[in-house]
């Protein structure tokens, strides 16, 4: 053990991605043998921090120190060699192999080049038994529940003699019982001398496990406190207190007739959702990742089948079986992932802008290429999309400009209800305010907006009504700024 030095230390760490800061000015020391929790809203910089600690990313400025000596990781291998390991929420393993094979992945027991399968099976089973996991070593990993897979991943990290173990939201998919098993394991590892970093938004877990807790917000370190000397209230305040320069664009527009109403709508990942959207208003959906908001809106849009309840469009019940039905009614979805759901990246900007509207461009199934060009030019000008021309591939544009294309294609289609799923993730401040201006323009034109955001200040400022989701259900609804930010976060976390 190092004498007097922290085990692992970040000194003046900065991480930039194409000009925007993901982390800035982070000074943080992990003491040997402690359990250190890290909390923060989505987008606060937690995942970037883990990637720096495990060598997946390299800092743009500042340095790391291990037992007082500066270290630089060229890749995850260097971090592993020091005994730094991470257990992620999404299990990174080989689902087709056995539990034993996964435990020894990359570290197989062999003699004369031949695998000693039986030895690995026995040793693996002994390890699982010792940890108290009711898992058979010869089972196929993919046949286990996500929670059990997580336990296997933890066991794998444990048997490699780890000194610094990071848990990234490990209990998201775990049952209560599995969570208790995991906690026992964490305590056992900690008792053996391992330093634990525990990342979670579940405050009660933090208070149960951790010695100290650090709060991140907007890429900066807000506070590091002893859990014995703080309270949930204090942590929540640290998580949401906001920088003064945040100014969101909000224009009051008279609220008009009802556009959409759901009555007890249920579907994959959500249940019993009743809400209404009128012309001229923004209905914000706030919740943690996995709260069922995206599932709700994609089902509204016809991507999935609803399993119960009703959808009314302008007070008339409608059946939405596929996307075309929703589009025909006048809905538009700006999905969560531009790259995976929003854009045809290796096709032109003009092509992407015209995509939902080709049935209106030309007759007899032929495309009027002149009209196509005019359309593209109109939206490029209207949204101020920075592109050399409509023929340029969408992948060559910045994130913000890509987002404008996804909005532009629906403007062209003349939609009346816009669903924005995390519209400002990964865009810079300037583009953010342009997107807010688009919101205001849409409302002026008589459209209604459903805004999903995991960034509380954004939904808080922009939403005429704010609906809080937790575990696939709505838990609260508030008017514009009628509730405290702390209250809303508490409702979403369920603390």
């Amino acid at each position, binding site marked *: 053990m190092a004498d007097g030095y922290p085990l692992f230390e970040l000194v003046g760490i900065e991480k930039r991605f194409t000009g925007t800061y993901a982390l800035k000015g982070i000074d943080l020391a992990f003491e040997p043998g402690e359990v250190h929790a890290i909390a923060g809203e989505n987008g606060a910089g937690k995942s970037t921090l883990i990637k720096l600690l495990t060598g997946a990313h390299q800092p743009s400025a500042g340095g790391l120190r291990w037992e007082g000596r500066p270290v630089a990781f060229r890749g995850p291998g260097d971090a592993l060699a020091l005994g730094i390991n991470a257990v992620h929420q999404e299990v990174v393993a080989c689902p087709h192999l056995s539990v034993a094979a996964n435990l020894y992945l990359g570290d197989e027991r062999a003699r004369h080049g031949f695998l000693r399968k039986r030895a690995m099976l026995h040793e693996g089973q002994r390890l699982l038994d010792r940890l108290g996991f009711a898992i058979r070593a010869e089972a196929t990993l993919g046949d286990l529940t996500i929670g059990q897979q997580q336990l296997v991943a933890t066991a794998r990290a444990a048997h490699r003699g780890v000194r610094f173990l990071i848990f990234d939201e490990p209990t998201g998919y775990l049952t209560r019982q599995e969570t208790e098993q995991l906690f026992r394991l964490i305590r056992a590892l900690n008792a053996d001398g391992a330093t634990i970093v525990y990342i979670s938004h579940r405050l009660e877990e933090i208070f149960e496990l951790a010695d100290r807790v650090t709060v991140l917000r907007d890429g900066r370190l807000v506070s590091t406190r002893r859990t014995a000397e703080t309270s949930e209230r204090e942590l929540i305040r640290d998580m949401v207190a906001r920088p003064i320069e945040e100014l969101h664009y909000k224009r009051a527009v008279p609220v008009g007739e009802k556009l959409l109403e759901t009555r007890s709508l249920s579907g994959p990942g959500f249940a019993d959702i009743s809400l209404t959207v009128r012309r001229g208003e923004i209905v914000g959906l706030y919740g943690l990742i996995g709260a069922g908001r995206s599932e709700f809106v994609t089902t509204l*849009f016809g*991507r999935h089948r609803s399993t119960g309840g009703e959808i009314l469009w302008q007070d008339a019940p409608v059946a939405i079986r*596929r*996307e*075309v039905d929703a*589009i025909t009614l006048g809905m538009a*979805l700006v*999905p969560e992932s531009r790259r*995976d*759901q*929003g*854009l*045809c*990246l*290796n*096709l032109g900007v003009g*092509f992407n802008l*015209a*995509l*939902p509207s*080709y*049935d209106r*461009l*030309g007759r007899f*199934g*032929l*495309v009027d*290429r002149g009209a196509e060009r005019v359309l593209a*030019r109109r939206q*490029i*000008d*209207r949204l*101020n*999309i*920075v*592109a*050399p*021309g409509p*023929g*340029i*591939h969408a*992948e*060559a*544009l910045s994130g913000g400009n890509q987002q404008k294309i996804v909005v532009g*294609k629906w403007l062209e289609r003349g939609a009346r209800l816009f669903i924005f799923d995390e519209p400002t993730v990964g865009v810079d401040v300037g583009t953010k305010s342009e997107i807010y201006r688009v919101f205001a323009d849409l409302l002026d034109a008589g459209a209604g907006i459903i805004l999903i955001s995991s960034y509380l200040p954004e939904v808080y400022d922009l939403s005429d009504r704010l609906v809080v989701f937790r575990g696939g259900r709505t838990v609260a609804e508030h008017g514009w700024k009628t509730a405290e930010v702390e209250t809303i976060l508490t409702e979403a976390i369920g603390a």
Partner: protein
Amino acid sequence: MPEPLVAVGAPAVAARRRLRFAFLLNLTLLGLLGLMWAGLSLGTDSFATFGNFTNLLRQGSIWAIMAVGQTFVIITAGIDLSAGAVVGVAGTVVALLMKSGVPVPLAILATLGFGVAVGWVHAFGIVRMGLPPFIMTLASLTALRGIGLLMTNGQTIAGLPAEFSALARDSSFGIPNLFLAVIAVAVPCHLLLHHSRWGRHLYAVGSNREAARLSGIRVTRVLYLAYILSATLSALAGILTTARIGIGVATTGDGWELQAIASSVIGGASLFGAVGSVPGPLLGAMLLTTINNGANLLNINPFWQRIVTGGLIVAIVYLDQLRRPKR
């Protein structure tokens, strides 16, 4: 309204480079073709004869038709491995129908209908049963070969009507009919791909299926059309081949699916989807036919042409990778 930014720098350069690549590829293919033709004309006595050249055009035409169909499927990021087998079975079907007294036009129409059915089955397996295109069409390749052999009991079907053979052997306006068939296929296909709504939707599905779906495109419908088009054009190639050789043989078209895929890829189509055109596979097919023909005339062991084709595919796809922006 602020002046739309006529941007400088990276995107513009990338766009120009991409345009230049497609143009340069076609130009290179054309140059390569000219070079080979010139070389073969000088190097052999028999290449630049009327008989050989029309022969070359005829064989090239059949592959070109198949390659165009294949390109539609490749644009959706799929593949149709059954193309060669469809040629064999379609040739058998059309021959059997005519032998049993069905009039020639009706036999041809029925065989094209058979092609539609095969394509429908492919799309059904891929879209509804969720099979990967590679597996679905590989299974179909094996099964169709079996069906062709079963129907004929492995026998050759001879004695087809003279008017049928004339379709492939005669010329109109001094141009071989088969070459006219290519034009009759290529022009509508080009219009379909670049001037129709369906063509736009095809590229969108090949580029990002989820984005296409969320933009209101009926993805399944687009896929059905692509596979039906590919199988129907292969059936047409089968009819034309049978007319050309004058007999129905169930094993015709063995390995031609690879020629069609190679023609398409050499012509610039990307197996990752959303890239491809009609002139590309036409040039690709002519290039492969010339390699084939030239090797015969030069008395090169015919096995060499398979090796050369393989090398060509690697070279072209490698170039395709180079122009792809790295993520």
